């Protein structure tokens, strides 16, 4: 059974593409045949984060328009077995996507025995974003501990509940997961940043993970490597934990507390 998971947020710049790349890589590393689709037609970036930007020949729009085959369009990751990238078009706009066209692509992927289809949504609530979430069985709502991001996440949850295929067909609702990114425990401790509990309270959906603010996220995107592959980094470990939870394992949340300061730091920090 193929599972389709959308990574969405409403607001831009909160880490959707970083998350899509790491979630897809993590699932593939655990042995699942996984494809990650960039739905941001016109503003393709997943290829850069995955480090395969020079290998893009055909794209999602070509596939939707039946100008290229699935085999021609999918880019096989060079590091991880079982991982494929389906890039967005850079020259077309979002109107190039239709429900019927995307349905055909999803159907082809299901027939090719993919275990997971990860849909990287564009920001906003327009056609591209709605197209990315339409076929979702599960949704990872990426949220920063910041007012506008939390509000937009709530808005996108409303859209998931009313405009996804599952809601329109009166099927079991899309399973929602909250992923908090760019979390800074020290600022939470000082009362300057919304805490995990605050956000879970406000959005009222189950918590999949907390990704701490970490310099390795930028390092990895500079290098075109999903941060989950940086196993030394806190962000990489946090994504790895999130994969375990996504697969049904109950794991305690980490990286919620500020590191303890030494005596000198406490006096002069």
């Amino acid at each position, binding site marked *: 059974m193929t599972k389709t998971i959308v990574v969405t947020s409403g607001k831009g710049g909160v880490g959707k593409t970083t998350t899509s790349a790491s979630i897809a890589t993590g699932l593939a590393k655990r042995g699942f045949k996984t494809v990650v689709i960039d739905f941001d037609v016109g503003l393709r970036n997943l290829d850069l984060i995955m480090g395969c930007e020079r290998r893009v020949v055909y794209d999602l729009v070509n596939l939707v328009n039946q100008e290229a085959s699935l085999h021609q369009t999918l880019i096989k990751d060079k590091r991880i077995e079982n991982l494929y990238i389906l890039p967005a078009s850079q020259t077309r706009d979002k109107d190039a996507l239709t429900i019927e066209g995307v349905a055909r692509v999803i159907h082809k992927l299901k027939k090719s025995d993919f275990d997971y289809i990860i849909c990287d949504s564009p920001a906003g609530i327009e056609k591209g974003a709605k197209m990315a979430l339409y076929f979702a069985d599960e949704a990872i709502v990426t949220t920063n501990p*910041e*007012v506008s991001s*939390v*509000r937009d996440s*709530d*808005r996108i949850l*409303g859209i998931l509940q*009313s405009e996804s295929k599952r809601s329109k067909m009166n099927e079991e609702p899309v399973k929602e997961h909250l992923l908090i990114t760019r979390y800074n425990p020290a600022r*939470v401790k*000082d*009362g*300057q*940043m*919304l*805490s995990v509990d*605050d956000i879970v*309270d*406000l959005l009222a959906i189950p918590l999949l993970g907390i990704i701490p603010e970490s310099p390795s996220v930028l390092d990895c995107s500079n290098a075109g490597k999903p941060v989950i592959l940086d196993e030394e980094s806190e962000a990489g470990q946090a994504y790895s934990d999130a994969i375990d939870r996504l697969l049904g394992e109950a794991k305690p949340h980490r990286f919620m507390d500020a590191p303890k*300061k030494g005596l000198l730091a*406490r*006096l*002069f*920090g």
Partner: protein
Amino acid sequence: MGIFSFFKTGKEDQSASIAKDRLQVLIAHERTGRSGPDYLPMLKQDILDVIKKYVAVGDDALSVQLESQDNCDVLELNITLPEEAESDEESAESARRRAMERRQAANAT
């Protein structure tokens, strides 16, 4: 938190709780907006316009709530009338007169 921060009151740093309070109000408001049918905001505006014909009230005088109980939907209207409309006959009279004039003006156009 160095030794110097002991002299601070510590109150100005609690912006996260302000954020949470603001979001709680806003999200609750936006959720009621999206759970109801599309016509609810327009219905609210029309009802408000009708009330304004007779009583001088502000835009926040009317709250509309749609609740689903078992098999029936309950539309609850809450209208807050201004206090002087009850206590002061004169101003109520003048409000009625003003409303009447407004209606006549509207009919004339």
